[in-house]
């Protein structure tokens, strides 16, 4: 699949012969004013109501799409401006879920962990409105991140299904339904986020079965990525090569690429989306540092199979830091492409282009 469906993201005015797709993982810092007005909308004594909040979300979406485009990204998103949390947002839209209150994650950090109390069913669309608005605001193709079914199951209380695998498969069928609706609306780049797999890698076969269900009937030209946060990748490699995806997105900058060799044996046969800026430090990497990081990717795949992205969602960074990181990332990518065009980068025999 991957050979064909990345060309559609190459801009008409792309400056280089080589093309490394630049992308984001998903979340982006919310403008401070959006957090303030979200609190206002929750306050029954305030005149700021849900309609006003909707308008504020639209404004924030336009601002972040514009920010992504100014940074020069080839594919953009709305930075998940309308989403509160990666499980709650979806659980709120799926029949069969209920919320009972916050539970502890650590210290005084809590999460409104939902319970699955009945068969999960698809009711209203989760993301089509968000996608259509973002697309209307964007000149570049839009990437749509969706929390994966394994994570939606793992980070819920399961009252209704025999085990978490059964719940995951039921949710995967709903994700499939949502993707069909998104594709109908014009979506061409979907990313499934499965952070829970990083902590329980032995469940990689469950995630594989979920992905088979997710992509069933989805046209080949729709690009499907899978993002798994930092963890022991050797425990899901090479099994992940069997996944029906176009791209595997990894968080490796955070660990200084210590695990890059994991993906070299056996040969990596899908596209690699490589995290090249660290989302856990506010220090902005220089263009030169990021170029070094991009070259790490060539140890695994040739340029035509490499996507460049941040390690993970950047929402916890200060907004100006997030922007600088992304802008430097795009600059570094374009410089690497130019050096590839000029034959200045030795790719080594094993991954040089055919």
């Amino acid at each position: 699949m991957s050979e064909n469906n990345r060309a559609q993201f190459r801009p008409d005015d792309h400056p280089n012969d080589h093309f490394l797709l630049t992308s984001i993982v998903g979340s982006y810092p919310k403008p401070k004013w959006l957090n303030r007005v979200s609190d206002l909308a929750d306050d029954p004594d305030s005149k700021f109501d849900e309609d006003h909040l909707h308008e504020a979300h639209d404004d924030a979406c336009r601002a972040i799409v514009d920010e992504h485009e100014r940074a020069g990204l080839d594919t953009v998103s709305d930075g998940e401006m309308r989403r509160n949390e990666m499980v709650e947002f979806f659980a709120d839209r799926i029949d069969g879920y209920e919320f009972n209150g916050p539970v502890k994650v650590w210290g005084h950090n809590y999460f409104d962990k939902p319970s699955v109390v009945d068969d999960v069913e698809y009711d209203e669309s989760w993301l089509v409105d968000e996608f259509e608005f973002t697309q209307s605001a964007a000149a570049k193709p839009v990437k749509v991140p969706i929390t994966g079914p394994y994570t939606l199951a793992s980070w819920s209380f399961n009252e209704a299904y025999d085990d978490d695998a059964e719940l995951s498969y039921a949710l995967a069928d709903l994700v499939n339904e949502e993707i069909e609706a998104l594709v109908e609306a014009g979506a061409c780049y979907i990313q499934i986020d499965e952070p829970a797999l990083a902590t329980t890698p032995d469940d990689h076969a469950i995630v594989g079965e979920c992905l088979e269900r997710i992509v069933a009937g989805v046209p080949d030209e729709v690009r499907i990525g899978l993002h798994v946060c930092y963890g022991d990748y050797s425990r899901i490699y090479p099994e992940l090569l069997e996944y029906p995806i176009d791209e595997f997105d990894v968080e490796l900058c955070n660990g200084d690429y210590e695990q890059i060799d994991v993906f070299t044996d056996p040969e990596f046969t899908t596209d690699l989306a490589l995290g090249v800026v660290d989302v856990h430090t506010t220090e902005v990497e220089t263009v030169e540092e990021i170029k070094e990081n991009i070259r790490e990717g060539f140890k695994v795949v040739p340029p035509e199979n490499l996507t460049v992205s941040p390690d993970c969602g950047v929402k916890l960074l200060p907004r100006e830091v997030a922007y600088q990181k992304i802008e430097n990332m795009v600059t570094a990518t374009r410089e690497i492409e130019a050096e590839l065009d000029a034959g200045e980068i030795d790719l080594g025999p094993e991954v040089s282009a055919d």
Partner: protein
Amino acid sequence: MMTELVATTPGLYPLPDWAKDELAELKGHQKGDLIGGDEGPEITDAYDRARTEAVDAQVDAGLDRVVEGQLRWDDMLAHPLTINDAVETGGIVRYYDNNNFYRDPQVRGELTPSGDVGAELDAVGADGDLQAVLPGPYSLADLATDEHYGDDADFLDAVADLLAGEIDAFPAHETLFLLEPSLVEAPPDDDTAARASEAIDRVAAATDADVVAHTYWGAVPEKPYAHLMDTDVDAIGFDFVADADASLYNINEYGTKDQIAMGLVDGQNTLVESPETVRDRVEWVDERTHTDFERAYLTSNTELFYLPVNKFEAKLEALGDAAALAEVDA
């Protein structure tokens, strides 16, 4: 059935929702903001009010033992170390196989008792039904990083002595639950298992109360279980939710004490068991074992902080009602 049924819990309760907000506001969200054992009057007052609610909830539910609730234990079972003066807290690390995290307690000097847990129990002011809760020495050592003793056996002994020293400062209590999930999650090898059992005895000897060594997230492997049977504890606790068959196997193959703690209610799922379901599970165990237990503690398998408050309270009710139901039937 002649067995005395005692409804209780392993403690470590969720904070009431108002206390989650109030304490987050007073303390903050970062790791440096967590309990160090030296909190000021405002924070102490908030915990006092939350503790009163936790005790009332147990009394209302008709539980036969009352725990303090361990609401201050930001670092869960690692708490008795993270508040100790000889310990520095490192990074945030995963709490067993859960989406929960605690500060890594790095032991940098000789451990001496702090009196912290004793002061909490004093604050309960309950009558004779008080149940103390501590991590077992093997689990507490397993959760910590030793930067001082330099030898696993010495460190385990030091942790056991620390816990025994904390118990010296406890008010009178009826029962002591020693929580030992690491016996399941990170089981000791043969030599270490013998030492772990000696360490449990060292802690248990510090109290006149009945001592329950409670295990969960599955069953203890055979050899460590056999060593656990060598201890002088009054009861071993089993997780019949996560692995009933393996628990039963240990009991029938290696025997168990005259008393037993049965983890029958799931501390990590919002599905609330009915009292009848709990009672059925008691009978299931009773029918498949060959011991006439003097006493059975009916409890949740795990700590209860994983649950939202409404479900946590419903689980307490289920346990209290189940013990009452079964007594009527007997």
